């Protein structure tokens, strides 16, 4: 019996396809409803708040301002210090707006009422006098520091860091060719199907918080710090979560206000973002790299020098600090270039704060280095594959320490490229596209390569509990929210314990049921939570053996376990798994459970993806087909892995062609879902996804690496390359709009 490696169907999907799932808004609890009055200017002084009319309305319980809420919100929202060193940063205090508002859409007052309609009606009567201040919306303008978002910081540059390796200047001057490059990703909106929401219950001593989040344990720690309440008295429960893409590893002032109101009123208070609110809750991406590259006439890239500007929006969110420090060291990617000088800057603007978004830093780095590779190919009239082949780190160099000290664990990059080109029929596609173009059709094929860093530590928690009836609960610190990782983990545990998968339940997302945990993000869950689950299950099995040994009056070494049976090797006596479980709860034994906090470090999957694009006479591009060949380590559930390729690939179509979060001159988000074009099933390409059979394992017990973000990491580069092939034009940004194509 072996489950790993098979496309076992997702275990817990019935509720999702039959409408019985429980999102935070489905939690039934007697509660008050919060809504927010928002700033309609990008920067301004909050002069006066007229809340009298609202308070007179029937059903209105309270109207709170920043002054009142911030008496309880003691600490500000700060960076994720597990991954972000705050020391080089200039960080403004970020609580509920008080005194000044820093972006259009920022909450400036909160209304609490007995139902959400009353709350909304009352919010319309709250007049806030805001005296506009000069605002800085545009990142290029913000760099000049003429208008400051946060006067107390003295600058809009939240972070400046130099990433230098080798001698870029010298390498550039020795290069055969030097070319200037500008490469950009524009602002996006993460768009989970379920908008964020929170229910906060305060009983006078303890806080219980139902929260649409990817990181319940970190949230507990942050709430503890911010409200100065011990973690033991805060319980964070993550119900079903309808997507996050990184944007739900993010704490909002609205959420802090809901908690503060529940403490202040001693009542349960809830808020679910409307779609409009979700769209301004977080934006993502927006970065520009400007610099110069040097390369030899044979296509060898020898130097990259330049400046990376990353927009922050009005405040430093929990996650955005990752970007300016992870993008630069990932820019070399899978290539051997060793002379780099990258100045990385993070810039505050009076706009909606930015968070990480699926891929977080690797899509940006990959787009930069793949554009550079394609630029070298174009300049030298070389083939895209050939130029990459010339630069890839060779197998004999593995494990390879990149110029910034990242250690690429395992892999054979050139062989994968060779195989990928063959399996994906890249050359055949190129020939076909050329013949189609001769017939007058604008079709093109693009290829891009990626190296991803994922499987982030520092650790993950898992507990394996054998119940009295022999069934098993696996409680993990990972927090799947749509990916289906729970099914893959159940497969791993079923194999470890040699029991049917139906007897296993994987659970997560309750800070009291699961003592510790980090969460699901960064393509880490299967590798680190899966390995933790294997480790805790092995320990649980050892404990089961001991119970069996004592029951059969044998030494534990004399007991062998196979396929649900404990066998006394010498005497041939047997005890079933269930009998041992019953024995464990007979009153003589301590029960059977084992927990681990498994340490882990990053691992590096890689692959090559190919996109086929067709452009019509109006410049409208469609991705017709998307093909992927990846080495993601050992594949535990091919269907789940492929699902990630499809989902990420569809988001890549969105980033490359459709999605653009336009901020107007007033700093207001100028799009709704009527014109922020999230791709639909019609825009989704046909997918072909392959995983390298001769995979290169990670150091994790699962031997897996990660695939959650791969297609959104490399997809935009492959798609943009395909548009270039189709049109003969050059594009160095996302999205490429019909207008860009027609120009």
């Amino acid at each position, binding site marked *: 019996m072996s489950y790993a490696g098979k496309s076992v169907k997702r275990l817990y999907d019935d509720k999702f396809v039959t409408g019985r799932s429980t999102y935070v808004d489905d939690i039934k609890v007697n509660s008050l409803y919060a809504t927010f009055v928002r700033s309609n200017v990008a920067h301004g002084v909050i002069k006066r708040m007229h809340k009298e009319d609202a308070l007179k309305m029937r059903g209105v319980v309270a109207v709170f301002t920043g002054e009142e809420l911030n008496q309880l919100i003691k600490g500000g929202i700060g960076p994720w210090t597990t991954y972000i060193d705050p020391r080089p940063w200039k960080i403004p205090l970020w609580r509920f707006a008080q005194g000044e508002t820093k972006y259009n859409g920022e909450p400036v007052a909160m209304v609490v009422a007995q139902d959400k*309609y009353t709350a*909304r*009606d009352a919010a319309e009567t709250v007049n806030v006098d805001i005296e506009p201040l000069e605002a800085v919306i545009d990142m290029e303008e913000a760099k000049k520091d003429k208008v400051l978002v946060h006067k107390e910081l003295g600058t809009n540059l939240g972070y400046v860091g130099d990433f230098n390796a080798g001698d870029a200047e010298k390498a550039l001057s020795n290069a055969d060719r030097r070319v200037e490059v500008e490469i950009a990703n524009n602002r996006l909106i993460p768009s989970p199907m379920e908008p964020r929401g929170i229910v906060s219950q305060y009983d006078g001593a303890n806080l219980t918080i139902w929260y649409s989040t990817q990181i319940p344990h970190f949230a507990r720690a942050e709430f503890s710090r911010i409200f100065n309440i011990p973690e033991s008295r805060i319980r964070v429960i993550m119900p079903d979560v309808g997507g996050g893409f990184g944007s739900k590893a993010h704490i909002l002032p609205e959420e802090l206000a809901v908690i503060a109101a529940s403490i202040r009123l001693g009542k349960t208070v809830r808020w679910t973002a409307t779609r*409009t609110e979700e769209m301004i809750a977080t934006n993502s991406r927006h970065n520009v790299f400007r610099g110069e590259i040097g390369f030899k006439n044979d296509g060898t890239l020898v130097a990259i020098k330049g400046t990376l500007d990353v927009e922050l929006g009005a405040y430093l969110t929990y996650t955005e600090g990752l970007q300016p420090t992870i993008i630069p060291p990932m820019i070399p990617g899978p290539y051997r270039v060793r002379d780099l000088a990258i100045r990385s800057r993070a810039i505050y603007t009076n706009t909606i704060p930015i968070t990480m978004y699926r891929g977080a830093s690797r899509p940006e780095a990959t787009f930069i280095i793949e554009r550079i590779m394609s630029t070298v190919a174009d300049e030298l009239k070389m083939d895209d594959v050939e130029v990459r082949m010339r630069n890839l780190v060779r197998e004999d160099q593995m494990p390879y320490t990149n110029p910034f000290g990242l250690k690429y664990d395992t892999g054979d990059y050139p062989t994968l490229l060779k195989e990928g080109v063959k399996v994906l029929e890249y050359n055949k596609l190129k020939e076909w596209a050329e013949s189609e173009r001769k017939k007058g059709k604008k079709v093109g094929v693009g290829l891009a390569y990626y190296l991803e860093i994922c499987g982030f530590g520092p650790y993950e928690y898992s507990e394996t509990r054998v119940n009295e009836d022999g069934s098993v609960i696996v409680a993990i610190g990972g927090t799947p929210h749509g990916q289906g990782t729970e099914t893959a983990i159940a497969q791993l545990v079923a194999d470890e314990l040699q029991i049917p998968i139906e007897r296993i339940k994987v659970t997560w997302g309750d800070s009291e049921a699961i003592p510790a945990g980090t969460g699901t993000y960064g393509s880490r869950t299967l590798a680190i939570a899966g390995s933790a689950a294997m480790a805790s299950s092995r320990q649980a099995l050892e404990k089961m053996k001991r119970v069996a040994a004592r029951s059969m009056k044998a030494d534990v070494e004399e007991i062998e376990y196979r396929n649900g049976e404990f066998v006394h090797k010498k005497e041939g006596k047997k005890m079933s798994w269930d009998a041992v479980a019953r024995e464990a709860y007979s009153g003589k034994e301590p029960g059977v459970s084992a927990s681990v906090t498994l340490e882990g470090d990053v691992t590096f999957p890689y692959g090559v993806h190919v996109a086929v694009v067709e452009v019509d006479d109006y410049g409208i591009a469609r991705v017709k087909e998307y093909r992927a060949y990846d080495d993601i380590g050992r594949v535990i559930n091919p269907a789940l892995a492929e699902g990630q390729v499809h989902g990420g690939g569809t988001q890549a179509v969105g980033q490359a062609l459709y999605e653009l979060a336009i901020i107007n001159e007033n700093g207001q988000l100028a799009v709704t879902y*009527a*014109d*922020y074009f999230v791709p639909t099933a*019609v825009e989704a390409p046909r997918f072909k996804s392959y995983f390298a059979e001769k995979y290169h394992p990670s150091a994790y017990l699962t031997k897996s690496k990660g695939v959650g973000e791969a297609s959104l990491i490399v997809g935009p580069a492959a798609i943009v390359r395909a548009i270039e092939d189709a049109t003969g034009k050059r594009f160095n940004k996302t999205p490429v709009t*019909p207008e860009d194509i027609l120009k």
Partner: protein
Amino acid sequence: MYPAQVGYYRPDSVEEALDFLDSNEGKVLAGGQSLIPMLKLRILKPKYLVDIGDLKELSFIREGEVASIGATTRHSELASRKVPGLEIVQETASKVGDIQVRNMGTVGGSLGNADPSADYPALFTALDATMVIRSKKGTREVKAGDFFKGAFTTALEPSDILEQIKVPTYKGYRQAYRKVVRRAGDFALVGLALLLKMEAGEVKDVRISFTGVGERPHRPLEAENALKDTKLTDGDVSRAMELAVKGVNPPSDSRGSSSYRREVMKRLLKNTLEEMRGAS
């Protein structure tokens, strides 16, 4: 996303609806595809909704020399019915929104809403249709060309109900509704309704109408006149393309800039004319 309080009235007949509208401040609700989102965003806060969506007397398609279409006929019903001489109506209806919108939305609702990027305003302008409007004062008829006053503004008064659209048929015309969208189900970046009658290789009649290029549907009569009696040569087509965009200043928005829209108008007209020329 939480509308203000609103009253709901569901009449049994158009007569009842008109009585109610005459003495109350109400907004007529048909398929709700535009009205409901506007209520949720609190752009509109009517006192009452008058729901005529299920009134049988307003849902019909009648064939004839001049066909008539009831105002609450669903897009999906129009999309599944071929009316001789009005094939373009079926084609247009099949391109409105997405399946969900087509199942709920009504032709009259869309016309009454008069979104500058909607499909029907251009269509019925090209067809020289007549809007039949009822109120307590009686029934009156307004030509499509006079019906659309501006963006989201029509000849309808608050106490009016659009009853039906009378449409002359165009037998023997090549007909096409073409629409450029950024993404499936989206409003038109530019849409074009085109009807062309050729006899002995010459253009006898042509009707051109664009959507998405201004506050109202744009019918370039100069381009139409220039094409009449021509053989539709490449030169004729180029001339028509230039005349079609003459004096037009399309909006610049998130879907595309003004100059891009002008370019799309020209290409759309060219491609559709060439397609029709080739079909002979």
